[in-house]
C-alpha cells in the first residue's frame, strides 16, 4: 500500500515541467496566492456575515459570490498538486516522505478536510437554506454563527500552517 501511494505520488511529467521551466514554480506560487485571496475573500466575508459582521449585506447576495471562492479553491488545489507532485525537483525530498513527515502539510490537509465537513454540516443542518431566506439586517441562527466562525478559523488556519510548510522540508 505504502509503496503504491509512494509510486502514485511521483509525477515524472510534473517534475520534468518544473525542471525544464524555472518559471513554472513561481507562477504556481502566484496563482496559489491569488487563489487563496479569492477563496478567503469570498468565503471569509460570507462567514463574517454569518457571525453577524457586515449587517446590511444579505447572506443570499454574499452567497452568490461563493463561486469566486470555489474558483480560488480550484486554483489553489491545482497549484498545490504541482507543489506536492513536483517537490522532488525543488528540494530533493520524495512527496511521500513530505506527506508522512511534514506536520504543517498534514495539519493543512486536516484543516481543509474539516472545512469541507463544516460546509457539509452547513448544508445538512439546513442552515444554508435558512440563511438564504434572511433579509439584509436579520440575525443569523446560533448554529449558523458557530459554523461561520469555525469556517473562518479553519481557513485562516489553513493559510497559517500552509505558510509554515517550507520550514520542515
Amino acid at each position, binding site marked *: 500500500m505504502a509503496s503504491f501511494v509512494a509510486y502514485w505520488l511521483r509525477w515524472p511529467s510534473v517534475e520534468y515541467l518544473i525542471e525544464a521551466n524555472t518559471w513554472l514554480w513561481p507562477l504556481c506560487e502566484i496563482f496559489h496566492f491569488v487563489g487563496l485571496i479569492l477563496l478567503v475573500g469570498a468565503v471569509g466575508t460570507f462567514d*463574517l456575515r454569518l457571525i453577524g459582521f457586515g449587517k*446590511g449585506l444579505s447572506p443570499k447576495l454574499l452567497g452568490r459570490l461563493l463561486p469566486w471562492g470555489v474558483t480560488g479553491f480550484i486554483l489553489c488545489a491545482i497549484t498545490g498538486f504541482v507543489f506536492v507532485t513536483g517537490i522532488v525537483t525543488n528540494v530533493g525530498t520524495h512527496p511521500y516522505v513530505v506527506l508522512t513527515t511534514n506536520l504543517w502539510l498534514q495539519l493543512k490537509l486536516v484543516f481543509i478536510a474539516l472545512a469541507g465537513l463544516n460546509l457539509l454540516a452547513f448544508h445538512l443542518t439546513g442552515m444554508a437554506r435558512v440563511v438564504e431566506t434572511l433579509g439584509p439586517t436579520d440575525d443569523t441562527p446560533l448554529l449558523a454563527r458557530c459554523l461561520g466562525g469555525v469556517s473562518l478559523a479553519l481557513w485562516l488556519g489553513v493559510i497559517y500552517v500552509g505558510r509554515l510548510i517550507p520550514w520542515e522540508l
Partner: protein
Amino acid sequence: MRSQTAGGRAPNGIATGGITFAPRHADAGSFRRAFQRTDSVEFLVWLRDTSYVTWVRESTSLLGYTLYLALHTIGLVFLVGPNLLIAARVLGVAPQLPLSPMRSYVPIMNVGLATTFITGSVLFATAPDGFVKNEVFLFKILFVVLAVVALRLLLRELYGTAGDPDARPISRRARRLTSATVVFWTAAVVAGRLTAYSARTVFQTLLALAGLAVVLGIVAYARRAQANRTASRRVAFGIHTAVKEGE
C-alpha cells in the same frame, strides 16, 4: 540559519555587492551612534543585528520568523478580501450588493493593513541588506503604497460625502480607483512572490504571466464576440423574443 530551499524565502542569500556592510554583530547596540552617523546603511546593519531581530531570524520557535510570515499573509487577506468585495460591487460583478454596509469592513481592512505593516517591518528587519538591494522587492513596496493610496481615495470617494452611497450612481472616478486597487494588489502579490527569485526567473515568470494574460484575453474576446453574434442572429430571426417568452 534557515536553508534557502523550496521557493526561497527571505533573500538573505542575495548578493549585496556595491554596498559594504559591517560584519554581523560587529557593532550592534548603539542606536544613537547609528543615527548620529545619519548613515542609512549603518542604521540597517544596526537594525539587522539588534538582539530581537537576530532572535526572530535565527530562532526555530513558532513565535519567531514563521509567526511574522504567516501573519503577514493573514493580514493581506483581511486587507485585500474586503477590497475585492467592494470591487465586485463597484465593477458590476455583484451589482445588487449595497455599498453602505460595506463601510463596516473599513476597520477590518485597517487591522489587516496594520498587521501586514508591522509583520512586514519585522520581516524586512531580518535581512534589510538583502531587501534594499532587491529591485523586485522595491517594486512590491511601490505597488503596495499605490494600492493603499488608491484604496484610501476610493473609500473617500464612496463614503466621504454625506448621504447614502447607494442612492447615487457610481462615479467614473470610483470605478477607476477600484480597478487601480485590483491591478496594484495583483502586481504587489506577483512581485511579493517573485522577491525570492533570480532576475532571470523573474523575467521568465513575468513573460509566462503576460502570455497567459494574452491567451485569457483572446478567449474572453472570442466569447464576447460569439455572444454578440448569437444575440444579433436571434434578433435577425426573431428568436430573441421567443426565447425570452420561453423563460
